[in-house]
């Protein structure tokens, strides 16, 4: 493999992996607090559509990103009200959020289909290439989240809630408040993930443009064993599969893009099987459960 080829793959992996990374980090925080959000795709779509809409209206992509993150947070908090406040089933609620996101984003984005927008500007660092701000902030965000989760009182309480809400409650924490906070972070990051896709990669809006990335992110959380640092690697690998096959195709190589795209999912499944056999599954113990208070 020649160096220019490798660099091209790496470069486009980083670009396409960034939106995955943000979405994965967001879902990871939520899941560490015990909440699985199958509707992450919907959150990303809302972020993407709001990003495009606001950017097109104001002309400023950074404002677009900020608006997208707030919109994502709002959507996640709505989801949070249903699963925390009303104690509804998380999987069903997540799929509902998915449909909601599809619909709302289509409505928001409709006037902006085909609109020309100024995408996120690229900032170059010597020797490292030119990428937009969100790419540069991706890995640092992951590190920040790692630090938040593992080196602060808030993070410890959050992880305790995700493992055993009753034990966290006995230790004097409030599981529902913490879960809302976790979802706020999750929505914020998910919205940014969608915004990056729209404002840096595609530079336009199309219905359903995330094309399953939200679900890939959910798989990535498992692949990364709920650790933000591994998520960086995972996003690169999964983003890389996509860009690798594009680059290969551009050079006329005869590898089926479909087989390549299957690899991340099959890999995740294999890893899960391996861990399942060894019973070292690292999922937060209370993931998916609703907490009902002291009995």
């Amino acid at each position, binding site marked *: 493999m020649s160096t220019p080829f490798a660099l091209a793959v790496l470069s486009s992996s980083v670009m396409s992996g960034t939106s995955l990374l943000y979405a994965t980090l967001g879902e990871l925080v939520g899941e560490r607090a015990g909440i699985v959000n199958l509707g992450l795709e919907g959150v990303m779509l809302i972020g993407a559509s709001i990003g495009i809409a606001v950017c097109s209206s104001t002309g400023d992509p950074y404002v677009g990103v900020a608006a997208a993150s707030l919109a994502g947070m709002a959507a996640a908090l709505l989801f949070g009200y249903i699963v925390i406040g009303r104690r509804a089933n998380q999987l069903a609620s997540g799929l509902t959020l998915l449909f909601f996101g599809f619909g709302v984003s289509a409505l928001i984005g409709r006037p902006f289909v085909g609109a020309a927008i100024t995408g996120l500007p690229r900032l170059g660092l010597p020797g490292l290439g030119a990428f937009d701000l969100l790419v540069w902030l991706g890995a640092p965000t992951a590190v920040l989240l790692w630090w938040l989760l593992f080196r602060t009182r808030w993070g410890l309480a959050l*992880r305790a809630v995700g493992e055993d809400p009753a034990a*966290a409650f*006995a*230790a004097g924490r409030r599981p529902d408040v913490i879960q809302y906070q976790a979802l706020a972070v999750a929505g914020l990051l998910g919205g940014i993930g969608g915004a990056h896709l729209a404002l840096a990669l595609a530079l336009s809006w199309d219905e359903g443009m995330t094309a399953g990335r939200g679900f890939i992110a959910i798989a990535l959380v498992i692949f990364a064993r709920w650790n933000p640092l591994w998520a960086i690697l995972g996003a690169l690998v999964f983003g890389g599969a996509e860009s690798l096959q594009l680059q290969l195709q551009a050079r006329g190589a005869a590898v089926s893009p479909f087989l390549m795209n299957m690899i991340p999912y099959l890999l995740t499944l294999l890893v899960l099987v391996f861990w399942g056999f060894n019973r070292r599954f690292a999922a937060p*113990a209370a993931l998916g459960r609703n907490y009902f208070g002291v009995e």
Partner: protein
Amino acid sequence: MTDAPALLEANGVVKRFGALLANDVAEFAVHAGEVVALVGENGAGKSTLCKILYGYYRPDAGEFRVAGERLTITSPREARRHGIGMVFQNLSLIPALTVWENIALYVEDLPWLIGPAQLRRRMRRLADRLGLAVDPNLPVGRLAVGDRQKVEILKQLLAGAKLLILDEPTKVLAPQETEGLFRTIAELRDEGYGLIFVTHKLREVLACADRIAVMRQGRIVGTLRKSEADEATLLALMFGAASPVVAPPRSPPKAPGELALQLDRITTAPEIGAVALRDVSLTLRSGEILGVAGVSGNGQRELAEVVLGLRRQLRGGKRLWGEDAATWSVARVRESGIASIPDDALGLALIPGFTVRENLALGSGRRYRAGLDLDWRRVAADMESSRAQLHFPPLPLDAIAAVLSGGNQQRLVLTRELVHGPKLIVALYPTRGLDARSTQAVRTVFDEARAADAAVLLFSEDLDELFVVCDRLIVLREGRIAGTFSPESFNPETIGPWMVGAANAA
């Protein structure tokens, strides 16, 4: 002991759960630098009292003073703020979090940024005293149980406990670890902490305690100083004087029938949350009721599961009516004529959302098969006929199992299991939680089964019940058979010591 006000005083504590009087304690106190042991049989009310002291339960009545100051304790967090800590049997640690993280969760005055280094200083001295030498970065789930318990103790101490309540701490420990625990308790006492040590094992009590409070049926029936206490006195207080038991007329003893069940040196693999059986051998013949005595949690459940085919043994043989049944499935075991009456009817034997009728129809092999569906008329007929057999009125067929009373749930299980004349009945605490009338009915059922040449393996904690009903008795302790007894030895003074591992178990 000093003259300073007691660390904790509790007076007039009353707690009821429905109709059951769990606690009625006139006075109880613990001083600094003192170990008070709280002993009694299961169900005596020891755990309940401790949970009240820790704020886990609210008592119906009671006055509490901490260091002389009158208080109401409304939650565990408040109890901890007042310096009371409790180590439960199933520790409240989070297995996925590391040692220092579990501790950090309980320490209130940490800054926002935390890390192992901060806690290290606080932990080190105490950890050394407790003999805890583990890497604080290890997840708690990877520690041995003895070490986990030490982490739990450390956690409570660092959270500010001056009085530590230990609820049956040796239940989960191996013998070597028990010695370590006793050393820890002695160290803590010497440092001025107050400790409450809850147990039913007399040997431990005599090794550790400065004062011993004996509980029976919710009351403290006696408080002794260490110098005044010996096993005989304690046993007398725990079990009460043996009253003459008025037994209902029993069917005459029979000549031993054919061999129904043979277990030969059964050993099961150790498993978290289960007791491993070791070299258990027993025989059971038709027309015989064999009782298994012992405090629950010494392998009774595991033994019943091995007999029923729910648990595979690691080593050893199992024969049912002469046939090698070591690899039989649960369904096959049931079909060969074995009935199971577990202790938790709703949790283990019934489907809560099903009606009585539907519950009756399950697990009966071919009996109710009728093409694709089931022979519901036969189910109803069996319920009717059970009236004569089981001496209580049939239950309404369309009632949902979850809303039946505990007694009725147990009756439903009995109806289902006994209605087609099983040849071997495995009953695990069948009368637990039942009122007197239902209990008597159940015992009569077993007696009649015996008269009909069935074999019964009866697990019970109630010695009176076992004495009345059984032909032979074995005592199960820590996964082994501690002794076999025939009716001449059926009295608490003889059997009791074997159950609790007293030194004079002769």
